[in-house]
């Protein structure tokens, strides 16, 4: 029944009074927990994908090269690999593929052996 008389302002005052009674170590732990919670909330709000990557250990640390998100690094590596292989294959096929001239020879009036000296 008494709770019905509580207002937002009175709750805030009560909480502040209780907080003042806590020792420094507890206050410090609570402050750190609050910062962590706020950081998680900020990530989730600004970029759900980044938050998901972060929670799955796919987003990098905070220094130098490794500060890039790991997913970006992995995607860059994969794209480079695919590009390299595609280039290698295209160059390879071009080097081996004489099919344009071969089809002309194979469909010519003269038999293949006529061109052998």
């Amino acid at each position, binding site marked *: 029944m008494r709770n019905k008389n509580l207002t937002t302002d009175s709750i805030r005052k009560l909480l502040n009074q209780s907080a003042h009674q806590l020792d420094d170590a507890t206050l410090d732990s609570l402050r750190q927990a609050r910062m962590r919670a706020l950081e998680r909330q900020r990530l989730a709000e600004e970029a759900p994908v980044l938050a998901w990557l972060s929670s799955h*250990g796919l987003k990098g640390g905070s220094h130098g090269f490794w500060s890039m998100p790991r997913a970006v690094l992995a995607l860059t590596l994969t794209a480079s690999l695919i590009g390299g292989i595609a280039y290698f294959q295209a160059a390879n096929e071009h080097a*081996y593929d004489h*099919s*344009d001239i*071969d*089809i002309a*020879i*194979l469909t010519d009036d003269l038999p293949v052996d006529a061109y052998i000296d």
Partner: protein
Amino acid sequence: MQFNHLCKYAAAAVALLIPLLAHAATWAELTPQQQQALAPLSGEWNKLSEKQQTNFLGIAKRYPKLTPLQQERVHDRLVRWSKLTPEQRDHIREKYRTYRKLPPEKREAMKQHLRQRHAMREQAASAVAPAQPKP
């Protein structure tokens, strides 16, 4: 932790890309259209080098656009073409390129010359060939 994840991703990417590198295909792996175009080579396809296979697959790709007469010529000559050495094929390609660059009248004269020479060679070969023993 970071490096481990990166390695896992790179390994997965490489594993996915390895089949692309394995280029040689067995006869059974060819499409029905490729098999039809390269039918005369069915018996020896799996023995051909990767380079040759790549080249023949290029021919198979162009085969459907050929006229029936051209398709017949390709089928008649594919096996002979595959039996030539790489040097012989390169030599023929080079000669054919030169031949195509000639003006029409010279090209016709050259064709006549090559045709006559080929006929004489065939004649000589049949004369030299030993008679088949009677059963």
